[in-house]
């Protein structure tokens, strides 16, 4: 486990848990959906930390718990060496400005009855108490920065295309000069040519404003293009994490390997899809015993059914949760 406490770590997450209680009826005992189960990792300043996994693996919940948009069940999140999970509402407000989120669906994440100026300027008013004039200037500046024009200030979200809305969402996050942005599937709703523009812009902005991203996506190709470090999630757990090359070139977890193999490469080739990952992601309420991946794992042995694997460091910084990591 990475346990560095050096200052270049912007975010240090340890043993983070988020359980949702579900009841069959009012009187039954609650069952727990372990959406995030004992996740630990650190995010270095000015890097992109990619989180990848199938739907239902807990990626989005992880991002939201980090920002305290939902409350964690356990664990700690050190943001710039302060445990933000223990802050009260007033203390937290100071941190809110520094951590922003851009979500997947630009059709739902913008208030339909607010004009762009209000959407972007609202945060400035709350966090900086600026004059109307000053807000006006800053909104103008940020709009140009994300490739929109001044005249867009008084339009409503429905007047924009998906790509333009995502630009507004980016502007709204950036205007507060944050240090950390959670990008939750930022381009999944967009066409490839628009996706290319948005991803390039996010890359440039990161450089210009010394930003740190946590990029949540199901698209491994986007992860490969954007991320420096990658965590692979399966049923609420991080089953493998490491640098981008660790994950793509020195893959250690069978799940990661199968996930990569199931992406159809965008060039015609004869040898695709030799390996298919069978079955579907199980219900997070009744997650399998032992290693949670064992029912789908082609390498599963007896021990995988009974004992949960330890987190092992196969190489410095490259951790994997598997009894029989690949290549060892």
């Amino acid at each position, binding site marked *: 486990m990475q346990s560095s406490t050096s200052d270049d770590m912007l975010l240090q997450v340890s043993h983070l848990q988020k359980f949702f209680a579900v009841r069959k009826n009012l009187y039954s005992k609650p069952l727990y959906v372990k959406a995030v189960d004992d996740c630990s990792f650190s995010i270095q300043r000015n890097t992109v930390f990619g989180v990848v996994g*199938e*739907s239902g693996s807990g990626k989005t919940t992880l991002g939201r718990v980090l920002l305290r948009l939902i409350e964690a069940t356990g664990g700690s999140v050190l943001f710039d060496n302060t445990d933000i999970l223990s802050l009260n509402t007033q203390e937290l407000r100071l941190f809110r400005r520094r951590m922003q989120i851009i979500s997947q669906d630009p059709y739902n994440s913008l208030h339909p009855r607010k004009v762009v100026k209000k959407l972007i300027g609202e945060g400035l008013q709350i966090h900086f108490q600026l004059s109307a004039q000053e807000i006006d200037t800053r909104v103008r500046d940020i709009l140009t920065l994300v490739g929109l024009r001044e005249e867009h200030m008084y339009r409503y979200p429905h007047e924009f*295309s998906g*790509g333009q809305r995502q630009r507004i969402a980016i502007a709204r996050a950036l205007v507060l000069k944050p240090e950390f942005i959670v990008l939750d599937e930022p381009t999944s709703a967009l*066409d*490839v*040519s*628009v*996706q*290319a*523009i948005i*991803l*390039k812009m996010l890359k440039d902005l990161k450089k210009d404003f010394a930003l740190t991203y946590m990029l949540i996506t*199901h*698209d*491994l*190709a*986007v992860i*490969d*293009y954007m991320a420096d470090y990658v965590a692979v999630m399966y049923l609420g757990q991080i089953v493998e994490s490491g640098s981008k090359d660790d994950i*793509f070139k020195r893959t250690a977890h069978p799940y990661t390997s*199968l*996930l*990569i*193999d*199931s*992406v*159809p*490469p*965008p*060039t*015609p*080739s004869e040898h*695709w*899809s030799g390996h*298919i*990952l*069978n079955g*579907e*992601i199980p219900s997070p309420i009744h997650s399998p015993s032992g290693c949670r991946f064992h029912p789908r794992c082609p390498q599963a042995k007896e021990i995988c059914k009974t004992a949960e694997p330890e987190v092992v460091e196969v190489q410095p910084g490259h951790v994997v949760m598997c009894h029989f990591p690949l290549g060892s």
Partner: protein
Amino acid sequence: MEQQRGDLLDISGLRVVFNTYAGQVKALNGVELWMNHGERLGVVGETGCGKSVTALSVMRLIEEPGEITSGALWFEGRNLAQLSENDLNSIRGKDIAMIFQEPVAALNPVMKVGAQIVENIECQRRSADAGQIPDKRAFSEIMRDMLGRVGLDWQRTENLYPHELSGGMAQRVMIAMALSSKPKLLIADEPTSALDVTIQAQILNLLNKLVRETQTAVLLITHAMGVAAQFCDFIAVMYAGNVVEYGSVQSIFRNPLHPYTKGLLNAVPKIGRTDELQSIPGIVPDLIDPPSGCRFHPRCPYRKPDCDTLEPTLRAAKTEPAADRHHVACFLYQNDA
């Protein structure tokens, strides 16, 4: 009857408009594409380029306020565009079947899965052997056999309702239903777009196996270039209501000719790709008032003086073997004309 370019399907000069309050949307502007028996044609393009409208036109499912204004849809020598509703019903679901992006939404929510498949088989048989007493037990046998072929346990599945199925299972049920009539053409409209990559790989593998067995041709509509590259023999690239490039999957991916195809391929992220992504400048045009001439000309880096007045037609690219059927609608390649 005209000569068909493909012996299964030949769409020529297909125009579809939608009459809306905001104006007439010229959704398809003379679409050209064709395919032979057993072939797999991928139709790729971005949102709003007319992929799905093309698919729906083949099934003649364009409804008010939409309308096919001109063009021919030759299917095995018959022009679907001119058939009566009765004649169409003997083709729909039987010779041409269709699966959709949202499998759960495409199934009847208040009917058990097994019964839905049986009902479908019954409908096909009714038109085929009219007058005979339907043999329900035989239909159930076919249903169970089909569920088995798509990798589902019929004993468990046949009594489930659609909401009890996962997305992957529901798509398998759709495939079972569609292929139960051994159609000559399967139209698959974004069949895996709503699924995870791992499930997508399973479904593509399954489709691959089944259509090979039944010799079914597939018209695959997708925006995912990877899916098209791996599954299809031929590709048609659409932009703003036109097929701008058509040819074998090798010729399109290895030697794209149309500036839009080039731009699209350069925008696709790929594992292991190290260069920067290139985007296409500008935005997709409004089809109520589409650009004159070539609809791509406002965004085209290679535009020539005539591009904004003349409309290019889809013509064979002369430099390549005929088997590649490489065609492109761009003046850059039509100097000799």
